[in-house]
């Protein structure tokens, strides 16, 4: 079994079985903990089997009010031994910019890092930029 980090080794390689990751822990609506954010205001996650669909909404000023929906490109567990998905990567093509998203669950919060790349010379002298924001789950009661 090849590895490039010690932690990538399985102690019992004979017990290896195809790993499936359930994204159900992400399901639901999440609101930005910063009500005055100029960025993403709400994230909605829908898990169907092993597929996670993610929808972003912004405040409509510096970010679009509706980003549309994207499937998680990669779901990850907390370790090489598997378990429920606690992180994902996806991206949104908004036309004027592409946004790569990395998200993870941490102590009940959804932490989202966004990497914004202007496309088609639409940066207008602005830099590609990074943001990290925190979201709490919307009470369903």
């Amino acid at each position, binding site marked *: 079994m090849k590895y490039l980090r010690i932690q990538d080794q399985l102690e019992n390689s004979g017990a290896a079985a195809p790993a499936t990751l359930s994204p159900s822990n992400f399901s639901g609506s999440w609101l930005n903990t910063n009500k005055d954010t100029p960025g993403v205001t709400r994230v909605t996650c829908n898990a169907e089997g092993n597929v996670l669909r993610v929808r972003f909404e912004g405040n409509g000023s510096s970010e679009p009010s509706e980003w549309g929906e994207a499937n998680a490109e990669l779901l990850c*567990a907390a370790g090489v031994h598997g378990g429920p998905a606690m992180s994902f990567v996806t991206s949104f093509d908004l036309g004027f910019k592409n946004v790569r998203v990395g998200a993870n669950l941490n102590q009940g919060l959804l932490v989202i890092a966004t990497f*914004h790349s202007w496309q088609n010379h639409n940066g207008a002298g602005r*830099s590609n930029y990074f943001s990290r924001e925190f979201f709490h789950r919307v009470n369903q009661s």
Partner: protein
Amino acid sequence: MNNAEVHEAAGAAISVERTLDVSALLGEWSNTNPSATGIVRLLLTRAGDGIAVRVFGAGHSEPLDWGETPAELFADLPELTQATSFTSFYDLGFMSVWLLVYVNKGVLVVISLTRFQDGSGRSNYWGREFFSSPGSRFQFNERKALAHA
């Protein structure tokens, strides 16, 4: 406001590709945990207007060299020009790894998302590790900021 309107608000009249200042990222970054079993070291070197990333993973006898990969650079805000974060992707055959990297208070935070492609049964997994660099200008800037606080 829809996508097109936000685009207009961003000011699409002038199209200038911006090159970011990478100087504060350059150098060798070591894991703050000397017993790390994940990534032990990153070497960030200048490559054209950008940087090249070289990762060294923890090995039993010596660090394991992943080779170099390019990075896409980002600033903290669209108005700023200092690169403070980047993304990189490694396809190493048996596994592929996304690196999402940013600086927080002088520390380089490296999030890695790993997908195994070798049928070994190993799970895709997420990791976060912290790195410091003795010569980091981010640390200098932080001290300067504290001195003026």
